[in-house]
């Protein structure tokens, strides 16, 4: 009976990734699934100047010595940002040149994912625990290659994998968002992508759909309403369903045993769509808290139990 621990949207938080790896032992899980959006959203420059380093954290600019840089870097990683030491000239260069900034982002992100893969290898070697990662819409395509090369982490994207008698399909692609991120496509294309995998599933009653984007109007997809200028409306209290109709239709048509989602951090929840249990554990990566779902699978019962946890 495999026990699955699912977490998603870690967004570069190294604390959350370490907790994710430790969750297997902590909860007695056999399988770890990371649902996507692994990479961070920001680089925090640590600028070398006049014999010390300056860094701005929480809106407060501070000067630190070379000895303190490691601690500062740890604090920055904890929040899901990438610390990067640089000169004043490099800072100006990145500020003024979008292409170099994008190149720099890719470099630190891939380096971060590679470090995470090595941490996973150190932690999981010899445990027999399987660990799956499926990059999400915020993760650049090159992330997949880093995961493919990982020793003990398996790439989920676009594959059907077998987990002790259960079949799992995965994709981190989403329907279009206002941010035009790396893995977005129309609902029709997303439907075709999901169907291509779902049609290979031998038994839907033992299937897991690991789809980053939550189903439309499910309650797992309620995001704060924004205007065209990306400004939150009505004090951030007005919510709109932003999930995918393709994901919803795939769940309704195929009725897998379980569907796992993320994407909308605020929309934590679990509900039934027909025979399918759909879960979005939410995300609080900025606090270093790992929100996850613990699912006990059973070959006969399907899902024996599930629980949303805040580690």
């Amino acid at each position, binding site marked *: 009976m495999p026990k699955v621990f699912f977490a998603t949207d870690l967004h570069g938080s190294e604390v959350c990734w370490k907790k994710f790896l430790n969750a297997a032992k902590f909860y007695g899980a056999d399988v770890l699934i990371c649902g996507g959006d692994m990479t961070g959203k920001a680089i925090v420059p640590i600028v070398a100047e006049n014999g010390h380093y300056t860094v701005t954290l929480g809106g407060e600019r501070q000067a630190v010595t070379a000895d303190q840089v490691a601690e500062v870097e740890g604090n920055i990683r904890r929040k899901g940002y990438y610390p990067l030491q640089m000169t004043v000239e490099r800072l100006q260069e990145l*500020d003024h040149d979008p292409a170099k900034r*994008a190149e720099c982002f890719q470099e630190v992100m891939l380096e971060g994912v590679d470090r995470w893969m090595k941490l996973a290898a150190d932690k999981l070697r010899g445990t027999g625990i399987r660990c799956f990662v499926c990059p999400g819409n915020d993760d650049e395509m090159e992330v997949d290659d880093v995961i493919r090369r990982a020793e003990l982490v398996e790439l989920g994207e676009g594959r059907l994998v077998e987990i002790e008698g259960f079949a799992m399909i995965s994709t981190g692609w989403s329907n279009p968002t206002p941010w035009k991120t790396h893995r977005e496509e129309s609902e029709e294309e997303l439907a075709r992508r999901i169907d291509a995998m779902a049609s290979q599933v031998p038994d839907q009653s033992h299937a897991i759909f690991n789809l980053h984007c939550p189903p439309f109007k499910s309650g797992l997809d309620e995001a704060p309403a924004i205007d065209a200028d*990306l400004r939150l409306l*009505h004090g951030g209290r*007005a919510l709109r369903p932003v999930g995918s109709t393709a994901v919803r239709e795939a769940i309704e048509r195929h009725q897998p045993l379980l569907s796992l989602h993320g994407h909308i951090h605020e929309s934590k929840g679990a509900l039934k769509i027909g025979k399918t249990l759909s879960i979005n554990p939410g995300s609080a990566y900025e*606090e270093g*808290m790992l929100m996850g779902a613990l699912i006990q699978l059973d070959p006969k019962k399907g899902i024996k139990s599930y629980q949303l946890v*805040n*580690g």
Partner: protein
Amino acid sequence: MADTTLGTAPGTRPALFLRNATGLVKAWSTFDAFVYSFWSINLITLGLYGMSYVYTVPDGQLLAGILLFGVLVTFLVITYAMLVSVMPRTGGDYAWQSRVLGGGLGFVLSITGWWFTLFLWAPIYANILVVQFFSPLAYTLGWTGVAMFFTSKTGIFVSCLIVLAFVSIVVTMGMETYARIQKVCFWIGLAGLAVVCGILLFYSQSDFQNAFNREATQLFNAPANAYQGTIDAASKTFGGSSFGTFTFGPVLLLLPWLAFYLLWPNWGATLYGEVRGAKDIRKPFWSMFAGLWVTVAMVAVVVLLINKTIGWNFYQSANAAYWNNLFAVPNAAAPPVPIWPYPVMFAGFLVNNHLFQALLIIVMGLWFFGWAGTLFLSSTRVIFAAAFDRVLPAWAANISAKRRVPYGSLVLMIVPSLVVSAIYAYKPDFTSVFLDATAVLALTFLATVVAAVILPWRRKDLYDASPIAQYKIAGVPVISIVGAITGLFLLYMLYQWSFNPDNLYGTSLQKTPNSVIYFVATYVVAVVVYVIARVVRNRQGIDLRRIHHEIPVE
């Protein structure tokens, strides 16, 4: 592909580089959040209703009481803003108490306040709707039969049904639509208030006496000089009140009355988990702070104008005569105008035109309809949070696919509210239970405040990672200091509600056995629900204790 990454404005030095990623939005308007907080401590609906009881503390200087309350609640606002900043979780009190105090304690303390006690608020809202809308409007339009109906037991129950239907519609239509309605109500309501204040400012006290006497005869068939008649009726049980009297002790005794409306600037805190940017302490703080102090300022203006034009002794006498007669206080006499003393209606009397008076009551009624819709909004979030934690059944968090109606949580709120409303309407013996509605919520807040005080030690990881970790005074975390001050303030009011020797608030434990039984029962039910959940979930292989256990990092 992603569009681009984000640099900084020319001439500025970048603190960080952002890339285009899902969820990176521009901050919400503090004004929008202020409107929500402003509605939560509604100075017309809850405010005027709550302040109509302060005649029980005749030496209590109301203006001083309001200002003192504003200062003390500011500490509550800071405490909650800091908690939002550390843990911006949907579920607010439930989430904070569970994560800091433990799942069982958190469930019992928050669910009694945010779920069980809100049943009691439905009939309170209904009563406010009667005394501020149905009844004065019907009297003004000459529909005496309708006005009398809404003061009957069945009329009160019908008003409860109207409130519950309205709240259900708001939950069904969603916050985005209601937020638009709230904004319309906000601006029109403010315009109405400006008219009320303008009338009270430009007319004199003798004008009001004449106007009151005229309308008392025309609308209520009262005998001549009803103004003096009201003071005379009150004098049987009330010794009079002077606005200028100031003694510190009685000012403190006003605080538990003022809590009825001024204790809730944090009402929206249960929703902050859905607000991106809530981790920035400035946003939630300024929203709640502005809501509180704009209301305090407006109340001060209204109170001063009531004193100037209506007359403080008359206004308090009218309140005393109305409530003491309703509560059958020994020797109480019925006032000549048998209606709750609504300052808006009184201001309208100064314009000798019933159509204008009716219009003013309708416009000011928007203060109710822009506010009442959120009655169960926070409760549904708390129920959701408990359901996601598997303490409540999964169906409690179900949402209908077509209209996104949270029917599970709505049923859990509406059905008990119907029963409680019927008790409120038809069983006057239970009045004290409803008076306790404020105290139980204050107890819930107290538990949250205790969680805030010990947070830096109990959840050091979360605290250290939060933006508020930098705020310390003499090495002591600011959240612990402001939490402790708030806790003392809440404890004082809880003491007064529970043990005031004169039963000033109608809630003293010794004098109100029904109330004690009801609230002990709610806590017992909460404990039983949690214990059952633990046992049932344990059999299913789910250990509820581990929900909030932190996974080791290394």
